[in-house]
C-alpha cells in the first residue's frame, strides 16, 4: 500500500497502539530551553524519576539570556530571568543531558542550532516544549512542539502518546519570483488558509518550488506551520538535505552510508493518500507583510488593509490602522531582524546586501540579533556586522531577543515595528508594541525608508 513520508516515519517509531486509540511513539531526541525545560527537568528530579536516555536530550539557553555583547553566563534580559538560567544549568548537570550553555561556541536559538549541529536529521522524531519545533521538519524529521508535561513524559519513557494526526499536502508549483522569499511564501500560505486552516494536520510541503529551496529557506517555511494550526510540517529529504548535514557535529559519522540509504527511502509514494491535498501556484505569491495581530492578517505590500469582520476591527484598533490604508505607506519606528524564523546567515546576507552604503531612517531604532553564536561569528568573518553597524543597526549576541517580550527591554508602547519574527500577537514584542511580520529583506528596506517598503523601491546608492 502506498504510504506518505509521514506514514513511514510514524510506523518506524510506533512502539504499540494503546487501547485508548493513541499510538505510543518512540522519541529519538528531546530538546529543551531554559524557559520551559527548567520546569520539566526540575519536575523529573523532584518526582524521583529518571531521564531514560540522557544522551538523547539536548538543552540550550536562548529565551531569556541577555543579548548584550558583554553578557556573562548568568546575564538575563529581564529582571529575575537569571533564575531560569541557573535552575536549568543545575538540572541539566544533575540529569546528565547535553548542555549547550550561554557562553559556548554552539549556543543559539534552539531551532537554529538543532539543524546547525546536525541534531535534527531525516526520519528522526524530535520534540521540544516549544511551539516552533515544527521548523525542524525542514530536514525531513518528525519534529513537533509539546507541553512541559509531555516533555517530561518523553524524557522519562522515551515515548509520547499521540493520536495520529490527519495529513495535508501543500504542493507549490512553478518557481518563486526573485523578490519572493520563503517568509513571503509562509505568510501567503497562512493568509490563504487562515490561522486555524491546517486543522491539526501534519503538513507536507512538496513541489518544484519547495525542492528549489535551500535548507535555511525550508526552515523558515516550516517554522511558521504552527501559525496556521498544523500539527507540524515536513519536507522530504533530498540531496540538498544530505549535503547540508554532512560533517555536522551530531550527524552520523561512521554510519553515514547506512543512514543515507535509509534517508533515501523517506518520501511519499506516488499514490499515497492525503486527507487534504492542495496546490499553490508560485505565480500568485508576492512579497507579503502582516497588518493585524494574527499572522493570517497579511497582504501584499501594495495592497490595502481590508475592511470586515469583528476580529479585523479589533486588530486594527490595536495596530492603530484603518481599512483602505496601503501597506507600503505605513511609517515605522522600529525594525528587528532575528528569531528562529529569519536569523540565519542567508537572512543576514540578504539584509546586509540592502543595507550596504545605506542608513537607517531618522527616528527608527533598528536591531539585529543573529540566531546563533556560530551565525554571529560567520557574519563577523564576512564583514556583515560592520555593514549592519554602519547602517545604524544595533548588533546583539545570539538568542530569541525581541521576538518576544520577557519583561525587560523592549520598544515603547505604541511603537510600530517591522520584524522578521513569526508572531504579531498583541503584546508579543512588548506592551502595546505593534508588530508587522515580514522577510528580512523587507525589514532592512523598511528600516532605511522609515516606512513599510520593498527593497526594489529604495533609490540606488551612489
Amino acid at each position, binding site marked *: 500500500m502506498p504510504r506518505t513520508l509521514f506514514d513511514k516515519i510514524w510506523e*518506524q517509531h510506533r*512502539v*504499540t497502539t494503546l487501547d*485508548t*486509540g*493513541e499510538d*505510543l511513539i*518512540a522519541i*529519538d531526541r528531546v530538546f529543551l530551553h531554559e*524557559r*520551559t525545560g527548567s*520546569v520539566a527537568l*526540575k519536575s523529573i528530579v523532584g*518526582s524521583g*524519576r529518571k531521564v531514560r536516555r540522557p544522551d538523547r536530550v539536548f538543552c540550550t539557553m536562548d529565551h531569556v539570556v541577555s543579548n548584550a555583547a558583554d553578557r556573562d553566563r548568568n546575564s538575563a534580559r529581564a529582571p*529575575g530571568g537569571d*533564575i*531560569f538560567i541557573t*535552575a536549568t544549568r543545575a538540572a541539566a548537570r544533575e540529569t546528565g543531558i547535553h548542555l549547550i550553555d550561554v557562553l559556548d561556541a554552539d549556543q543559539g536559538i534552539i531551532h537554529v542550532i538543532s539543524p546547525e549541529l546536525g541534531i535534527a*536529521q531525516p526520519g*528522526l522524531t524530535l520534540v521540544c*516544549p*516549544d*511551539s516552533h519545533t515544527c521548523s525542524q521538519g525542514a530536514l525531513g524529521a518528525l519534529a513537533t*512542539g*509539546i*507541553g*512541559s*508535561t*509531555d516533555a*517530561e*513524559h518523553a524524557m*522519562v*519513557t*522515551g*515515548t509520547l*502518546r499521540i*493520536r495520529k494526526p490527519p495529513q495535508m499536502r501543500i504542493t507549490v508549483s512553478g518557481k518563486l519570483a526573485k523578490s519572493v522569499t520563503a517568509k513571503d511564501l509562509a505568510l501567503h500560505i497562512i493568509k490563504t488558509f487562515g*490561522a*486555524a486552516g491546517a486543522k491539526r494536520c501534519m503538513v507536507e510541503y512538496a513541489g518544484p518550488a519547495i525542492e528549489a529551496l535551500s535548507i535555511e529557506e525550508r526552515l523558515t517555511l516550516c517554522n511558521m506551520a504552527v501559525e496556521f*494550526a498544523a*500539527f507540524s510540517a515536513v519536507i522530504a529529504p533530498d540531496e540538498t538535505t544530505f549535503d547540508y548535514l554532512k560533517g555536522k557535529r551530531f550527524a*552520523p559519522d561512521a*554510519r*553515514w552510508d*547506512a*543512514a543515507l540509504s*535509509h534517508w533515501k527511502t523517506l518520501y511519499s509514494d506516488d499514490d499515497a493518500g492525503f486527507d487534504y491535498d492542495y496546490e499553490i501556484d508560485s505565480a500568485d505569491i508576492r512579497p507579503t507583510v502582516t497588518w493585524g495581530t*494574527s499572522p493570517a492578517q497579511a497582504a501584499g505590500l501594495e495592497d490595502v488593509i481590508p475592511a470586515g469582520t469583528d*476580529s479585523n476591527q479589533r486588530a486594527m484598533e490595536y495596530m492603530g490602522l484603518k481599512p483602505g490604508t496601503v501597506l507600503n505607506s505605513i511609517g515605522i519606528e522600529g525594525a528587528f531582524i532575528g528569531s528562529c524564523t529569519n536569523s540565519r546567515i542567508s537572512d543576514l546576507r540578504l539584509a546586509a546586501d540592502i543595507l550596504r552604503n545605506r542608513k537607517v531612517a531618522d527616528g527608527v531604532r533598528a536591531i539585529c540579533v543573529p540566531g546563533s553564536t556560530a551565525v554571529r561569528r560567520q557574519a563577523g568573518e564576512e564583514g556583515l556586522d560592520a555593514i549592519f553597524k554602519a547602517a545604524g543597526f544595533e548588533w546583539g549576541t545570539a538568542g530569541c531577543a525581541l521576538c*518576544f*517580550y*520577557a*519583561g525587560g527591554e523592549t520598544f515603547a508602547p505604541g511603537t510600530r515595528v517591522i520584524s522578521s519574527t513569526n*508572531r504579531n*500577537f*498583541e*503584546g*508579543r514584542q512588548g*506592551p502595546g508594541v505593534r508588530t508587522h511580520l515580514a522577510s528580512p529583506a523587507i525589514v532592512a528596506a523598511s528600516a532605511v525608508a522609515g516606512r513599510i517598503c520593498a527593497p526594489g523601491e529604495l533609490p540606488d546608492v551612489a
Partner: protein
Amino acid sequence: MSREPFIIHSGIAAPLILDNVDTDQIIPSREMKTVSKSGLGDGLFAGQRYIAGREPNPDFVLNRPDFRGATILLSGENFGCGSSREHAVWALGDCGFRAIIAESFGEIFYNNCVRNGILPVQLSQENIAGLHRMVTINLPEQTVNNIAFDICEGDKAMLVGGLDIIGLTLQNEADIDAFETRDAGRRPWA
C-alpha cells in the same frame, strides 16, 4: 502525581467569546516568574485583567461580579493557539478553572489541558452562544447541559480517572524496551 478526577462538574461559565485567544494572552511571558508549576494564577489574562497599578479592570469578564468564581470558560475558535507554554493551563488551573468550552483549540494547549485535569470541550458556535451562566458538564455521558460532545477515549479515560500520564505509560515499559532493542539493530546511527 494523580489529579482530581473529572466526572460531573457544575459551575459558573464566563464568556470570553473571541477567536484565536493565544497563550501569550492567557499568560503573558513576563508573568511566568517561577521555575514551578504553581503560583501562576495571578498572571492569568494579566494584559486584560488589570489596569494601571494592577487594579482590576472592571470591564474584563472575570472581574465582573456575576462571573466571580467561574470554573468554566467559554471562547471561540482556535483557543490556546500560539506558544506551547503549559503555564497557560497551570494558571487557569490555579484560578480554579475545570473546563474550557470553545469552537476549536490549539493542538498543544488541548493536550496540556488533558495532562492537567482540565477538560477541553469542543462545541459549535451556536451551542456555545446558547450557554448561560450555570453550566453542567457530565464527562462520562459526554454532555454539556444536554448537548453531546466528542472526546477521544484516551483523553476521557485520563480525565475521568485523574490519571498521571507518565505512570500510565510506564506500564508499557516492556514494550518500550523491546522496541529500543529492535530499533538499535535497524537504525544504529539514530
